């Protein structure tokens, strides 16, 4: 066996759980230069790298890692930029264990290369030490593209089309660009300064960003075409929070995860009263759901001073959809998992504030459509517990605001846009779509992958025709 395999996988230095669960600073502290070079030297530089196939945007993984091993950190960052407009984001929030690292050949007998850590390292190094130069864009084509939304898929499309010389305008409904990266993912997992820096690079490459513009309300897609746009990309996210539809759900102190996180992250409620938007600080917090957004909500509640935070989930630990790393971080931060439990109603006081909930115990039955064992209520197992804040994090539906104002756009029965999975083409000429508005809630990197495919197809259209 070669010496390379014996070097253990780098361990990410992290803020101590007891300290970090009360602050909003980033949890991982980042690899040092030495650690990054040692980790990079573990890469076998496979001739046919499986990791690249495992990446939705085909990052040139062995190549950027080789540059880190050679101490050319700036070169590594630029290599990342060739295929990924958001490396500092992806290095932090991608589920690498299911993608690049999941297929890394080293993982067969030991631990895979820490590709995510290295990606974060290179992107951060360049942001902090680099010259700030952005990739060169091709000669202007004179074609104008409207991009609706400014989340990960929209940013990817913008970056790709700018490089190819098209004029790009991004329309964002909120007052700050970044979509879910800004309103949804908390500061301690993705510092907002990093998102702002990635967006600033896009602007340097020539992107126009029009915030405060709700396409579908302020202007329609057809009007954008009349204004002279040649193509449009819809990447507006899923957007409509689901609730439990049980008694008492409108009591004060019951939030959708969207509202809870938007108030905290985008509106900076955690800095109230320095910022004007308040956010309830619960003592006994319950989060309903067990995805990444639920973990973000639970960890946020802990940082806002909760005494206890419970994640209540109707299936068992095995079925929790959040990434292992997120579950692990949550547990380290003393968040409890109350499994095989489903709420049936909320209790409130005379002021309409939530005071508790009634739950049923569940057991696992036969597998359902998703292949996971279906939770079945145990009769007569009702029990109560107290809570003063509830965050409902059980997914989202498609927001009809844009789609209902866009004639000719075909939707599926859930209201998501029907788009060709290979290239994002919709039923409406000149319009592409990708990300959560097409697939329903998914991950940042899948949205970026959809953006990459759509951008390629849009470029063909702009240069060759529909």
């Amino acid at each position, binding site marked *: 066996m070669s010496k390379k395999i014996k070097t253990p996988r780098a361990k990410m230095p992290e803020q101590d759980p007891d300290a970090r669960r009360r602050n909003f600073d980033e949890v991982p502290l980042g690899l040092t230069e030495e650690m990054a070079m040692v980790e990079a030297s573990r890469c076998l530089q496979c001739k046919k790298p499986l990791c690249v196939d495992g990446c939705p945007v085909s990052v040139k993984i062995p190549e950027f890692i080789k540059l880190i091993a050679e101490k050319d950190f700036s070169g590594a960052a630029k290599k990342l930029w060739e295929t990924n407009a958001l490396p500092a984001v992806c290095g932090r929030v991608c589920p690498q264990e299911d993608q690049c690292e999941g297929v890394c050949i080293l993982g067969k007998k030991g631990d895979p290369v820490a590709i995510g850590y290295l990606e974060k390292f290179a992107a951060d190094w360049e942001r902090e030490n680099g010259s700030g130069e952005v990739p060169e864009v091709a000669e202007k084509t004179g074609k104008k593209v409207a991009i609706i939304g400014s989340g990960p898929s929209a940013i990817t499309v913008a970056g790709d089309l700018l490089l190819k010389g098209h004029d790009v305008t991004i329309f964002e*409904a*909120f*007052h700050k660009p970044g979509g879910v990266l800004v309103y949804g993912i908390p500061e301690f997992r993705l510092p907002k300064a990093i998102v702002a820096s990635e967006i600033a690079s896009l602007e340097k490459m020539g992107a126009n960003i029009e*915030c*405060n*513009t*709700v396409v579908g*309300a*302020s*202007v329609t897609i057809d009007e954008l075409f009349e204004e002279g746009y040649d193509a449009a990309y819809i990447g507006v996210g899923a*957007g*409509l*929070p689901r*609730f439990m*539809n049980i008694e008492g*759900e*409108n009591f*004060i*102190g019951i*939030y*959708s995860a*969207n*509202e809870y996180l*938007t*108030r905290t992250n985008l*509106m*900076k409620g955690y800095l*109230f*009263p*320095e*910022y*004007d*938007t*308040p956010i*309830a600080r619960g003592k006994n917090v319950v989060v309903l759901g067990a995805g990444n957004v639920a973990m973000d909500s639970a960890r946020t509640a802990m940082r806002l001073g909760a005494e206890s935070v419970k994640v209540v989930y109707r299936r068992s630990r095995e079925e929790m959809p959040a990434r292992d790393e997120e579950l692990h971080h949550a547990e380290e931060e003393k968040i409890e998992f109350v499994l095989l439990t489903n709420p049936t109603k909320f209790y409130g006081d005379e*002021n*309409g504030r939530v005071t508790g909930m009634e739950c049923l115990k569940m057991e696992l039955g036969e597998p359902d459509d998703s292949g996971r064992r279906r939770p079945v209520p145990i009769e007569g197992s009702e029990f109560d517990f107290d809570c003063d804040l509830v965050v409902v994090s059980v997914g989202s539906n498609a*927001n*009809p*605001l844009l789609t209902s104002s866009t004639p000719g756009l075909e939707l599926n029965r859930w209201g998501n846009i029907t788009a060709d999975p290979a290239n994002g083409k919709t039923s409406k000429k000149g319009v592409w779509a990708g990300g959560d508005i097409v697939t329903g809630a998914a991950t940042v990197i899948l949205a970026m992958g959809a953006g990459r495919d759509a951008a390629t197809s849009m470029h063909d259209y702009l240069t060759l025709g529909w």
Partner: protein
Amino acid sequence: MSKIVNREEMAQGTIILNEIEAPRISQKAKPGQFVILQADETGERIPLTMADTDPEKGTITIIYMVVGTSTTKFKELKVGDEFYALIGPLGSPTHIGNFGKVVCVGGGTGIAVLHPITKALKEAGNDVTTILGSRSYDLLIMEEMMKAASTRLHICTDDGSMGHHGFVTDVLKETLKKDDIDLVVAIGPIPMMKFCSLITKEMNVKTIVSLNPIMVDGTGMCGCCRVSIGEDTKFACVDGPEFDGHKVDFDELGKRLASYLEDEKQSLEACKISIA
């Protein structure tokens, strides 16, 4: 963009009118729709229903009572200053048609919201009786504009300083008794809308109210503005802001509006200190 081109103080400085440059919104806006405004980078997003639009000038008009941190910050903005953020037009527009005889009831700054609706209803051929109420005559806003927008106008004041000495509900009741009314539109403080709706429900007259819950994004994304309408939960920002007054749970709405009372006090104090 979002520059204030005209500013007036009304009701002894407690209510402010801002006419704001907003070309896209002014072209699109229909009666009953609202905008979201934010004073500065640290500000909160608050919804305000438009009082008027001028598509040719490319402006919209908002009228608000100075009550909390956001409106206190808005009040500081002078002609030529810009709002940090202005988004719209949001919400579903009022359904305008020729219904026959319509009564429009307005109270406080609800009168501003009522104005474009009244105007549109009259232009659509309705006979419009308007009833406006305020605590005292010097606090009443938009009397002339509302007079021009209506077939006839009644004024009610709590202290008797003008018109009927009492509440708008007294005049509403009389009007409904005297005449066959096809539609009532009531916009104002929650108790006013609640009691108007109770009266019209008894007399079986269809009633539209415009709700003003707390919002964040205003596009259906957060669910902060959920209201109980009969058996259903609706999002006021996209399903409203107008609803059937007979089905609205006004008590729940009132409680939810008080969600952040303590925080709001703390925030306003900090805001006043920083302005001083």
